[in-house]
């Protein structure tokens, strides 16, 4: 038995503390956006540092709050604990907190007079809190409830502008699909509970012998159906096809910062859920083949002789369909945010490859892709928000000449799009490279996943290149060129960075994303080895 100390929750306590402080200040009539934003950012940074310390990153390792023997302890020793600390989960926590950090930094640049700053940052913190809690779960209900914290907070975040019909419509759609998905996933959990009498993720996937009591007769088929429900219920967050349709409308209607958070953060919690819930049954078949579990009292009842392969087929097909649908739909898109939303869907398809292949390199590749996506997609949405703040329309064609007029934003956006397209020296290339190589290495039909991914990457270049062309090669319409036209035509020097108009918080957030895209593109090993360790440990611990 490995006892879980309360210090496991230190990052969560930072987030919760900041959120409660913000609500408290708000309730006494305090209105100062920078303070709320500062509190939120501070809480997130502290939480991130704590997580990195727990991951034992060299300069911070001394501050680790979780004992080393607790991290990655075998799940069989958890004794039905609802919480487990895995480096896999910690990596996800770091990813969640990074995306939250980008968003909260950038939101510091919102108009100071804006109402609802407290509620915005409070909800952002709670959404992040839900995600970090989810990353600690060893239990299905714990996982679903944590996801629900994120869900409820993000429904409200999307609609927090109150007077924006687009935002509220997005919130309504998000809520309906989200609540439906929640009902379906809890129903799935109830079926699994019905079959085995437990909701422990570990016990669910292996044998029931650990719990010392026999499963329900006919459990196999009921559990199968339970998993089907969970694919749907969690898949909604992942934006996997066919549960993707809401995402486009919501990313489009929500304020750009919130879209950035949804694409960069809350989508990933769904992926984490997918990995946690389905890796055990997927790996189970292989586990049986290599090392049949000891069966002391004759109560070893397995789920299904070969439960993994059908699930892998499902996720493989889902991956291909998701990336293809996302890319094809993005081709003809004329709205910038919707184009990014479709691209986000297709990226989810790439990430699912890792789950379908389910080998350690593939999981590490998926982690890298998830990590990269934070900077690429959240960053892109932040740039869109900044550009919208400069009074430029939401259509792609409205972006004519943006690259020349606003070199900082233009260059950043170009870098993010190139990374999304998978151009070398960006992290987007490395993540795809690792992921596809892992699929090829696994051989068999997994190779087709890599082929589909490559073809889709090629397809996606079309719509990214279109945006680049508009930004750099086309001149703005006369009416929108009310700004100094010389700057556009190259007559005079464009302002070097032109940060003033977009706010320094936002500029810094965008800068972080760009630097990360390059830094991890040039030297990915620094994170990749962490991801590889996390994947290995997860596979060993389960």
């Amino acid at each position, binding site marked *: 038995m490995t006892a879980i100390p309360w210090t496991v929750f230190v990052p969560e306590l930072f987030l919760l503390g900041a959120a409660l402080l913000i609500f408290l200040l708000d309730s006494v009539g305090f209105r100062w956006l920078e303070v709320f934003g500062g509190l939120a950012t501070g809480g997130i940074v502290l939480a991130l540092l704590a997580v990195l310390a727990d991951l034992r990153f060299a300069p911070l390792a001394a501050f680790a709050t979780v004992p080393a023997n607790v991290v990655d302890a075998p799940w069989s020793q958890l004794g039905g604990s609802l919480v487990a600390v895995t480096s896999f989960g910690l990596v996800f926590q770091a990813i969640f907190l990074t995306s939250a950090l980008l968003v909260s930094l950038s939101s510091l640049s919102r108009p100071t007079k804006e109402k609802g700053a407290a509620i915005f940052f409070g909800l952002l913190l709670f959404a992040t809190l839900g995600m970090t809690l989810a990353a600690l779960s060893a239990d299905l209900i714990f996982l679903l409830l944590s996801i629900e914290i994120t869900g409820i907070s993000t429904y409200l975040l999307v609609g927090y502008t109150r007077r924006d019909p687009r935002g509220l419509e997005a919130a309504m759609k998000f809520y309906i699909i989200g609540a439906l998905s929640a009902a*379906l996933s809890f129903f799935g959990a109830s079926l699994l509970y019905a079959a085995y009498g437990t909701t422990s993720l570990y016990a669910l996937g292996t044998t029931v012998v650990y719990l010392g009591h026999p499963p329900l007769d006919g459990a196999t088929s009921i559990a199968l159906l339970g998993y*089907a429900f969970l694919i749907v219920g969690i898949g909604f967050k992942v934006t996997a096809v066919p549960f993707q349709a809401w995402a486009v409308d919501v990313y489009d209607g929500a304020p750009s910062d919130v879209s950035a958070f949804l694409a960069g953060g809350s989508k990933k919690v769904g992926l984490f859920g997918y990995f946690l819930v389905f890796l055990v049954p997927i790996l189970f078949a292989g586990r049986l083949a290599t090392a049949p579990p000891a069966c002391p009292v004759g109560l070893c009842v397995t789920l299904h002789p070969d439960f993994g392969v059908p699930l892998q087929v499902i996720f493989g097909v889902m991956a291909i369909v998701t990336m293809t649908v996302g890319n094809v739909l993005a081709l003809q898109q004329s709205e910038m945010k919707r184009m990014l939303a479709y691209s986000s869907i297709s990226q989810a398809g790439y990430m699912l490859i890792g789950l379908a292949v389910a080998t350690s390199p593939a999981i590490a590749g998926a982690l890298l892709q998830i990590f990269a996506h934070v900077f690429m997609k959240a960053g892109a949405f932040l740039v869109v928000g900044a550009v919208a703040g400069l009074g430029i329309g939401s259509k792609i064609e409205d972006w004519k000449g943006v690259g020349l007029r606003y070199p900082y934003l233009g260059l950043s956006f170009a870098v993010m799009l190139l990374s999304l397209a998978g151009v070398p020296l960006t992290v987007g290339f490395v993540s795809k490279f690792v992921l596809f190589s892992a699929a090829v290495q696994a051989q068999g039909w997994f190779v087709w996943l890599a082929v589909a991914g490559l073809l889709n990457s090629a397809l996606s270049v079309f719509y990214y290149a279109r945006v680049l062309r508009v930004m750099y090669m086309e001149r703005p319409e006369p009416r929108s060129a009310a700004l100094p036209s010389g700057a556009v035509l190259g007559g005079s020097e464009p302002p070097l960075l032109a940060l003033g108009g977009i706010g320094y918080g936002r500029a810094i957030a965008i800068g972080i994303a760009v630097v990360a895209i390059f830094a991890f593109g040039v030297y990915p090993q620094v994170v990749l080895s962490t991801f590889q360790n996390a994947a290995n440990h997860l596979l060993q611990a389960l």
Partner: protein
Amino acid sequence: MSGTLSALFPWAFLVPLAPTLAFVIIGLFGRRMQRLEWGGWVAVGGAFVAMVLGVLIAVGEMLSPGTYSDRSVAWLTLPGNGTGAFPHGFSLVMGTLVDPLSAIMLIVVTVVGFLVMLFSIGYMHRDQGLPRYYAELSLFLASMLGLVLADNLLQFFLFWELVGVCSYFLIGFYYAKPSAASAAKEAFLVTRIGDVLFLLGIFIYFDLFATAGPGAGWAASGFLFVSHGAPFLAGVPVSNATLFTVAGLMMLGGAAGKSAQFPLDVWLPDAMEGPTTVSALIHAATMVAAGVYLLAVVSVFIGFTATDQLLIVAIGGFTTFWAASMALVHRDIKRVIAYSTVSQLGYMVLAVGAGFTMVGLYHLFTHAFFKALLFLAAGAVIHAVETQDLFKMGGLRKSMRITSIGFLIGALSLSGIPPFAGFFSKDDVLGSVYQAAQSHPAYWPFLILAYATVFMTAYYIFRAWFLAFSGDHPRDPTLPHAHEAPWTMTVPIVILSGLAIVAGLLAFVPQFGGLFRAGAGFLPTPGVPPTYTTTSLLLSGLSVGLGLTGILTAYVLWGNGRVFTLAESSAVQPIRRLLLERYYVKAGVDWFGLRVVYTVSRFLAFVDEYIIDGTVHGFERMFSELSTRARRVQSGVVLDYAAYVVVGLAIFLVFLYLVVPAFPALGGG
């Protein structure tokens, strides 16, 4: 002392970093640096730092000869799990390798790079777009140094491409001139052919070594050249000898593209459209030598088969003669030197092919200095008289004394007259090929071509010297009155003149010669002596004699302002025309393009328009149509979205509950 300098080896990455920084600074702020010559002095500074560091490292390597210092980071590691497509996994590595080969190249690249940068300040002063020029030149220098220090083939390739891109931009520096733009394009396309072959070769090597046992092959170690201070792959058993040979030929293809060897040589003379400084640095001393360096690296660290070697010798030997013959007749001073470059690169390839890698590098080393000298001197002349036509010049000896002497030293060196640098290295090349030909009779014809070239080389370069500098006055009286160049231009010429004299003698300094011997110690090809040491006096005499005869011939025909005109009826006239027309290769290509290709292309255009285009457009239309249609699922009605969710649920339920148990292959049953 040696210990102190060896301590620098792990910091070799700073060498390319200095010009990279210069590139970034000039790229960001160059347009505001009017007082720093639009960033020129920043570029000079970057190059200077690189030179100091590079030379110190090279000296460190000389003092501890034969050491390999590899510092690398695996920037991407995919562990293998013993099964699957690459059982040992692989890692992509970025690193710096300091070894005898790279030490030699470091000296060449940094010294010539610095001098050319300095020369540019004066030479380019009047041009527009200088920030672009200095940024690109700094990036070029950085990439070239990255290539030189690469410790693995993939990194080598990456910088190889980067160098090519820089070359493309710099050739097309005067992009408003159509000929410059087209030359840039031509250079890019022709070298791309070589690049593709090079990449193919890398893949073949990867395939060959990927399964060569844990830790033994590149599969596990990312295309590395060395491991634990010793050549990594030389000696690793190869499963498929034919493929190994093919891979070597692919490397030759890549080298031929970069080093302008026959038949990929057409681009280099045309590349002279770029600024003369660019020609000196990129298209004479450094980038074009990268092909030779690639062959050297492969021969040391991986090894060629006998078939590969014969082909390399053939290509090198033939190119030597072929290019020199074209240099005999041209009027454009830069083109004459460009052909000479192709020809001299042929010598280096020849030596590497014959198994004398270090001899080839020796010639590369000396050639870099005297060829850069020739180009810079030519640049100074062009700067002064604003023409490149030799037949308009004349008598410049008086007004441009330093330049004329510099050019003369370069010409003597190129002609192989002792004690100038070119004599030693060329003599070494010829002698070593002679030695190799003893056991490989197939080398003989190419050796003979190489000797014939010695005469031609001396003739054409002195023809150029006499035309430009001898006599009393310019043949074209409209030329502006020439003045000696400013100090930023003459100082590099003087320094390079000095180097063109001593670079060959340096080999007799024990430490410096040790650099070459140490590199040779790792030659994998058995049976070939590691270095050429004893020059038969007879052979040396032969080559010097041929060179002197060439100079004499040139003097007789062109000396003292004479202009030799070939009678129209002369039997040699067709040959002259043939050479002037560059063996009609260019015209042939054009004719071929016009007649054959045009006819074929009309047919192809038809095919293209109606079949290929139709298909492509069909796909495009299909995807667009698909996209437009499929977009309708995004109806905006949230109930439809809920319906998709439920449909998905139904599909998964049915699949898992009904379909899976029915198909054992899916794991059911």
